[in-house]
């Protein structure tokens, strides 16, 4: 059967099917071109043009035959003799081509990114993303960032600079009106000649809440630790007071014993001599006298006293710090220099010069005697002294040559306080 012999209905259906395939192929090709499937698209398009032309000729021929004007087109006059199976093959080829193209487009669309797929993907991100150029023009912004931007700026975001103006580069977290907390990262990159700024907002609500909770626990713990340290001081003081009380009780007991011994002596029941009774009373009175003496409160007293014991004079020029913490540093330094003076230098004199200038208090300690033979290594007492001094913000310098010199420098405020 030839084309001319084909029944009208079948011919019409075939032509309509061919038209449908043509439209489908155009759609698929359009999608392919949009996906930049250049080579494939061009080949398919060329084939399609050829097939379309063939179809047009068939359709035209069909119409001309039906109108009875077939003789008007000589160039295609012989087409009517083409067997029907050829047209069916053409239709089949078109069907296969359409299906293959559709599969190709679907597969390519899944595997490869297009600008839309990027947009769809970033919209699904829990993080906010905004990329804009130097002028502030937004190139890419996902829905999360659009929501965050509107929340933190109070207006619809049209420029990347709007968001940038509300966040800082130190990732300070911002709490949104819905209670969620975001931290912002800003990065600047060059793509070709374009300077792009990328702002990424990350949801750290859970971490932030946990950190806040941890911070509160830490504060509470620090406060408890501080109170415990205070309690320790109190308990140490309490222990000292207990010892004093025990000592006073002992004085009381000794007086009691003295009284009993005296009573027995007066009654003639004692074997003690008057000298022994007198010695007991002298001891008791001596103890009583001691109990009335004030306790040593001068922080410098102990070092001056012991220096006197070991035969070293300490001369002080200037004003010693009155504040206890600073005073203890000076006392520790003097003790170190005291041992150094008689142990290594074999000297008998220490000079402590206290000066105040340029916002600093300087305490310089030197001694007479033999200079150190080698560089002084900081260990033991000197090491501890440095730790104590530096913990108060002081500096410490040790000079070994030509003579030993220990310099401590303490900053003080305008009021002169350390």
């Amino acid at each position, binding site marked *: 059967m030839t084309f001319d012999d084909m029944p009208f209905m079948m011919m019409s259906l075939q032509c309509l099917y061919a038209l449908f395939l043509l439209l489908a192929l155009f759609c698929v090709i359009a999608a392919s071109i949009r996906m930049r499937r250049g080579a494939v698209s061009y080949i398919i398009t060329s084939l399609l043009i050829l097939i379309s032309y063939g179809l047009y000729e068939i359709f035209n021929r069909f119409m001309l035959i039906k109108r009875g004007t077939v003789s008007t087109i000589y160039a295609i006059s012989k087409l009517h003799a083409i067997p029907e199976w050829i047209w069916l093959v053409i239709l089949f080829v078109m069907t296969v081509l359409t299906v293959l193209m559709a599969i190709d487009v679907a597969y390519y669309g899944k595997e490869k990114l297009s600008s839309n797929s990027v947009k769809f993907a970033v919209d699904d991100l829990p993080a906010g993303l905004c990329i804009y150029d130097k002028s502030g023009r937004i190139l890419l912004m996902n829905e999360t960032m659009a929501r965050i931007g509107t929340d933190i700026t109070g207006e619809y975001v049209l420029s990347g600079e709007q968001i940038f103006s509300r966040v800082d580069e130190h990732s300070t977290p911002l709490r949104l009106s819905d209670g969620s907390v975001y931290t912002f990262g800003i990065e600047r990159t060059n793509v070709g000649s374009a300077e792009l700024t990328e702002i990424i907002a990350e949801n750290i609500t859970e971490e932030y809440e946990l950190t806040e909770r941890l911070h509160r626990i830490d504060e509470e*713990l620090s406060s*408890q*630790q*501080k*109170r*415990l*340290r205070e*309690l*320790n001081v109190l*308990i*140490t*003081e309490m*222990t*000292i007071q*207990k*010892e*004093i009380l*025990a*000592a*006073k009780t*002992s*004085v009381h007991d000794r007086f009691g014993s003295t009284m009993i011994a005296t009573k027995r002596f007066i009654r003639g029941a004692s074997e003690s001599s008057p000298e022994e009774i007198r010695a007991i009373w002298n*001891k008791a009175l*001596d*103890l009583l006298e*001691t*109990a009335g*003496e004030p*306790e*040593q409160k001068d*922080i410098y*007293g*102990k*070092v001056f*006293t*012991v220096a006197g*014991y*070991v*035969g070293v004079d300490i001369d002080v020029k200037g004003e010693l710090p009155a504040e206890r913490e600073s005073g*203890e540093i000076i*006392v*520790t330094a003097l*003790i170190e220099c*005291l*041992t150094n003076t*008689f*142990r290594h230098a074999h000297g008998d004199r220490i000079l402590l010069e206290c000066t105040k200038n340029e916002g600093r208090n300087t305490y310089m300690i030197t001694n007479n005697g033999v200079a150190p033979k080698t560089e002084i290594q900081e260990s*033991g*007492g000197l090491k501890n002294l440095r730790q104590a001094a530096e913990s108060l913000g002081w500096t410490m310098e040790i000079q070994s040559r030509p003579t030993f010199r220990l310099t401590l420098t303490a900053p003080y405020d305008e009021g002169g306080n350390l």
Partner: protein
Amino acid sequence: MTYNVVVVDDQNIPRKLFEMVVNSSSRYRLMYSLDSAAVAHVICERFDVDLVIMDIVMADGSNGLDAAKRIKKHSPGTKILIVTSMVEEGYLKRARDIGIESFWYKETTDSELIEIMDRTMAGESVFPESPPDVMIGRILSRELTPAETDVLREMTTGASNQEIADNLGISIGTVKTHISRILSKTGCPNRTALAIEARMRGLGS
């Protein structure tokens, strides 16, 4: 033979009592009486001191054990007798580690003290067999393991878990485990209550 003695106590009356004890024996001669442990080593380095009788806790912040360590370093021949009213396991352990010869209670009679001084100078080491037992929560202090006692002692200073771990050279996880066990044993509701309880009972540094 007469032994040279240095007495170190920051409180006048106890110091005087020690002086009296020393002076009461012809075997001992009081060289110096100091009111701070911070300067004790200076005297020991400068003079031939045979025995130092010293308290631990001083009001000026100095500490008899620290002073003893320094004395032992520079004057190893000097014997040391620590006399304190705070007889605690931690102090006893540290005193032994330092090499202190003797350690005794402050609340003792003159004759007992002289006897301990004599035994010390004779080369004997005199220590209490164990510190007095104290109740911590619902248990006696001896029911804690040595490691738990160490952690508890650190807790009484107000140290954080990290500080305790650093000071004892153990992991922070181990510290937490010990604290959890101590809380369970003592029945104390929390670590602060536990630390206060322990400190008030005399278990502390």
